């Protein structure tokens, strides 16, 4: 590696370490009930699943709408396997304690969540991955719905607790935990993108026929991308379960997949930093910053603001989304990544302009 590249890498590491440090410091100074932490936690979880979807849609060109189904698999696997044995009778109250009577440690649970999701992705991928893009989308959407119906089926209640929710599994308290796990997983994805596999994926995205002509095994690589993306979606499902402290199949609807798709497109298809940034912005906007619009009794200096009712926040949020999509057609980051080199070039361009003026 030449000198500038190594220096850039070190600077990137330092910056990422700084982010972690800032979060740790914030945890100490702000009251622990501040909304900022909720947004940070949820944002980092959605960042992971957005990056995993980007890997599939943006880098490999496989239009899949099944993320919610894999998150569901991951969340349930984690929850079912880690509920402490003494709580099982209370949680599985309609199914006599359920059929699983052991509990695994948290790390194993998260890993297994990813593995189970990847396994199902492999099975699902076998029949559908050769379909054309829109057909693939609807087929994966269909699989997500089928998985959801199966998990809600009461005959399987001994395992999944049917329509009832799962709770009492181990959760995290600090925002550093999801940050660390998501950060680690995203780092792996970045490494993958920059390897030969990543180049094969991009080739498939750009032109399938040409890629095949160049010797890339289409079916094998598509299945690989699908499985890896689902692995990380499963892990993010486990993290989401830990964030929410409850898991219920009915919330993993296709609406969740659409939200993730929105995050990916707004951030820029093919840009990992874009997905991360837009995930935090999306969560902050929809859950935190605009909540004051729901309060019907808002007064500005004695003037009762009309139109504000519960539901107004969501209307404003939808308008904001539409505006962003129409104005930033390629997403906020397009398909570029945030890199030290990019900043240096931008800075030197500015400096050169100054020198020209002087």
């Amino acid at each position, binding site marked *: 590696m030449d000198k500038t590249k190594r220096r850039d890498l070190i600077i990137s590491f330092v910056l990422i370490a700084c982010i972690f440090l800032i979060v740790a410091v914030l945890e100490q100074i702000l009251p622990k009930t501040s909304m900022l932490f909720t947004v940070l936690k949820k944002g980092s979880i959605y960042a992971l699943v957005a990056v995993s979807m980007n890997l599939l849609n943006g880098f490999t060109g496989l239009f899949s709408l099944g993320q919610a189904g894999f998150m569901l698999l991951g969340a349930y696997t984690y929850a079912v396997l880690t509920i402490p044995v003494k709580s099982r009778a209370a949680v599985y109250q309609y199914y006599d304690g359920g059929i699983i009577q052991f509990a695994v440690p948290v790390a194993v649970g998260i890993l297994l969540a990813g593995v189970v999701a990847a396994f199902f992705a492999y099975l699902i991928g076998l029949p559908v991955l050769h379909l054309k893009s829109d057909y693939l989308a609807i087929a994966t959407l269909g699989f997500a719905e089928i998985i959801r119906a199966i998990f809600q089926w009461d005959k399987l209640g001994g395992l999944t607790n049917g329509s009832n929710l799962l709770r009492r599994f181990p959760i995290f308290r600090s925002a550093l935990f999801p940050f660390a796990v998501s950060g680690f997983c995203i780092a792996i994805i970045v490494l993958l993108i920059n390897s030969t596999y990543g180049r094969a994926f991009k080739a498939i995205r750009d032109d399938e026929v040409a890629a095949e002509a160049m010797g890339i095994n289409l079916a094998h690589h598509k299945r690989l991308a699908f499985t890896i993306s689902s692995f990380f979606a499963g892990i993010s499902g486990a993290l989401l379960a830990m964030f929410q402290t409850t898991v219920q199949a009915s919330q993993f609807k296709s609406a969740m997949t659409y939200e993730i798709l929105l995050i990916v497109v707004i951030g820029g298809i093919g840009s990992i930093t874009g997905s991360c940034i837009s995930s935090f912005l999306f969560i902050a906007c929809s*859950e935190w910053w605009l909540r004051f619009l729901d309060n019907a009794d808002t007064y500005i200096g004695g003037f009762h603001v009309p139109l504000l009712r519960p539901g107004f926040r969501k209307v404003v949020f939808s308008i904001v989304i539409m505006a962003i999509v129409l104005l930033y057609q390629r997403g906020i980051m397009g398909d570029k990544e945030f890199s030290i080199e990019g900043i240096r070039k931008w800075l030197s361009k500015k400096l050169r302009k100054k020198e020209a003026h002087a």
Partner: protein
Amino acid sequence: MKKLFVVLSILLLVSAVVFAGGEKEGTGASGAKVVKIGVYEPASGDNGAGGKQETLGIQYANSITPTVNIGGTDYEVQLVIVDNESSNDKAVTAASELVSKGVSLVLGSYGSGVSIAGGDTFANAEVPAIGVTCTNPQVTLGNDWYYRICFLDPFQGTVLANYAKDTFGAKKAYALAKLGDDYSVGLCNYFIKAFEALGGEVIYETFPEGTSDFAAYVANAKNKGCDVFYSPVSIEAAALIIEQANTQGLTMPILAGDTWDSNVVLGAAKGTKVDISVTTFFVEGSTDPQITSFVDGFKKYLASNQTAMTNNGGNDEIAAVTAMGFDAYYTALEALKKAGSTKGADIQKVLPEVTYKGVSGDIAFDENGDAVRNVAYVKKVDNTTGKWQFVSVQSVK
């Protein structure tokens, strides 16, 4: 155009951050001290309609009793209302929002799923919560910070099973629940257990979310020769089921739980030939002066406030959840008075001893945090007038 958009959005965000800052204890308009009570209810999503009606009860109570005397000082009671959107993942952020605004205690929610989802956040922040109409036992089980003033599902399901057997002599029942909805599935579960213990047989089916077409389910009930149709589902599905039952000429009586006690059901059933009975917390037609003053006062409140009238569905029929919300507010005030402080931990210590006689009956808490209630009211729909007809007071044998 892009630049203008960026400037506008920055302005919006800045103003939002100003509003979004969390405060612990503020001062009210007149400079009096303020105690905040969180209202944790859905205002959108599947349970939005019911959640709004419950919030109305709390708001009405706040409008007639806006102050409380805690430890010798008069405090102004401020309601902090958040929308948990009837969904578990949004519920956690809604709960965090309440906690970050510094509420002393929380009322809610309509919908046991979101209550359970938010329970951990409240427990962690040491804010006690009083459930209003969440009937799933798991809400209070194992959570020392969650209490409730309504009866439980096991009780409700058994009451209806007994009612079906005794009043209609039913031997075969058809139970319909919504797939993925722990409330209706849980309630059906208890109904089935009780009904089968009484020697009856139950055909149990579920419908997926978003179903508008209940023709097949009604036809199933008819074809299997059932005697009663038990469907404790949410109000939107209720209206569609009633309609389909009327179209197909369903003769068997329809039974449901507390969710069907709403003007939505009355509106759908008026003019039809269906026979609907529900178990509920509240009866409007009582002559008790506390109840009549609540009923009259609430109707006047709706008439004077257009938003409230819309939230109630456009007419002034009182939903049972509104009465429960009303009682929950006063229970909260009793708890504040007894605790003598606005700190959540102090309130939680005294809650087990709080009692209150409300429009829905006597309220007291047992060691699990559940309400000590052993009666439910059974109401029937009068199809010609479109109003409720009180039938009986049921208790469990």
